[in-house]
């Protein structure tokens, strides 16, 4: 049986992890390789690295990091942040990333999704969608949550599927960082509208929230950052709990 995936997300700035200072059992809190290895060993099903600087001069640092992660880590990983061209995507994948994640660039130029999918395969293209409730409509927000686009969420999700996205990483900004639980209604609206995997993100605060998202929606994966970084719960604890709740977990 196909298992639900638990995906820790690491925000990277200048080659270092920036979220979380309080990692248990790690000497160098800001080292992405050490943290990634620890997560992999703890049972992470996949990893996401988001480069939040993504400036030109920092790009080289990111590529070196991706090369090292690919050498050290034996589970799949996605890299996102600042990918604006087919070449950007190609360089990251050739450095060892399994998937790249597009967000703002996909909205500005939806053809980019199909161009990368054609060259690297759909499985390598994750489209990250940030959304927020504006006047009772879920709107797509770009530029790291700063710029509303006026695009309605579900129509955009369908569009990215048609353009060849292999997966959708859906972050509900209504819930993100609140630790109040995943935004079940919004997640269902998207996952019922597409036939590609949807990763739920935003709002995870405890183990029950993961149980809810997997039992009340048909998403195949859930992503979280701070809950793991700050040691609120460990991956192994979470997976043990979900298995006991009869959620299919590796």
């Amino acid at each position, binding site marked *: *049986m*196909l*298992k*639900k*995936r638990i995906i820790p997300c690491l925000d990277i700035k200048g080659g270092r992890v920036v979220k979380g200072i309080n990692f248990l059992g790690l000497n160098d809190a800001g080292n992405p390789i050490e943290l990634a290895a620890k997560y*992999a060993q703890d049972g992470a*099903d996949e990893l996401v690295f988001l480069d939040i600087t993504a400036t030109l001069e920092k790009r080289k640092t990111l590529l070196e990091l991706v090369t090292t992660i*690919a*050498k050290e880590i*034996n*589970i*799949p990983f996605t890299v996102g942040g600042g990918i604006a061209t087919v070449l950007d995507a190609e360089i990251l*994948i*050739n*450095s*060892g990333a*399994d998937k790249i994640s597009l967000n703002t660039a996909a909205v500005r130029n939806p053809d980019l999704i199909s161009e990368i999918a054609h060259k*690297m*395969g*759909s*499985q*390598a293209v994750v489209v990250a969608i940030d959304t927020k409730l504006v006047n009772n409509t879920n709107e797509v927000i770009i530029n790291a949550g700063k710029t509303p686009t006026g695009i309605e969420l579900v129509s955009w999700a369908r569009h990215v599927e048609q353009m060849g996205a*292999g*997966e959708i990483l859906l972050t509900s900004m209504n819930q993100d960082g609140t630790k109040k639980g995943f935004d079940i209604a919004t997640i269902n609206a998207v996952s019922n509208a597409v*036939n*590609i*995997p949807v990763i739920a993100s935003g709002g995870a605060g405890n183990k029950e929230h993961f149980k809810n998202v997997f039992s009340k929606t*048909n998403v*195949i*994966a859930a992503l979280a950052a701070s809950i793991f970084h700050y040691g609120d719960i460990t991956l192994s604890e979470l997976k043990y709990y979900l298995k006991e709740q009869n959620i299919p977990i*590796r």
Partner: protein
Amino acid sequence: MIAILKYNAGNITSVKNAVERLGHQCIITDDPQLLASADKVIFPGVGQAATAMEYLKAKGLDTVIKSLTQPVLGICLGMQLMCNSTSEGNTEGLRIFDIEVKKFPPYNIVPHMGWNTLNMKESKLFKNIPTDAHFYFVHSYYAEMSKYAIAECNYILPYSAVLEKDNFYAVQFHPEKSGMLGEILIKNFLEL
């Protein structure tokens, strides 16, 4: 020497990294001489079947792969190209395994992406691998059930997840991305 077949497919670096993590040297090559003289050959692949097959034919690698006599391991697209044909772009395969590759019917999310278990038969490839082991899959096409299957997977329908015939082995999942147990499988292959 372990040779990884070089062609226009992704994921080749990941396979090389996995082999090197196991302490083996390897080369990525499309040189027929080097491929023929290697102890083991890995035929990796992520990508599109038709363009990959065109490239293999243009370089004459289709005949080279078929004539190899040492252990060969196909991974993902590599496995699918070792079959008779695939419905992806109506592509003729290498006909090593006399079976067809078809697209998953859309009764569930496609691609089949994530960690899944297998029904395994006895094989040297599965030495020290527990029966409830999980492996990482990413694919939209599947090899039909067959007598060559030494492991089956069930997603939407049961299909061949691992094939074996003479010196040819093939896995639909990505052992190089399947954590420690995936590495054990690669190690088992390298020690055949």
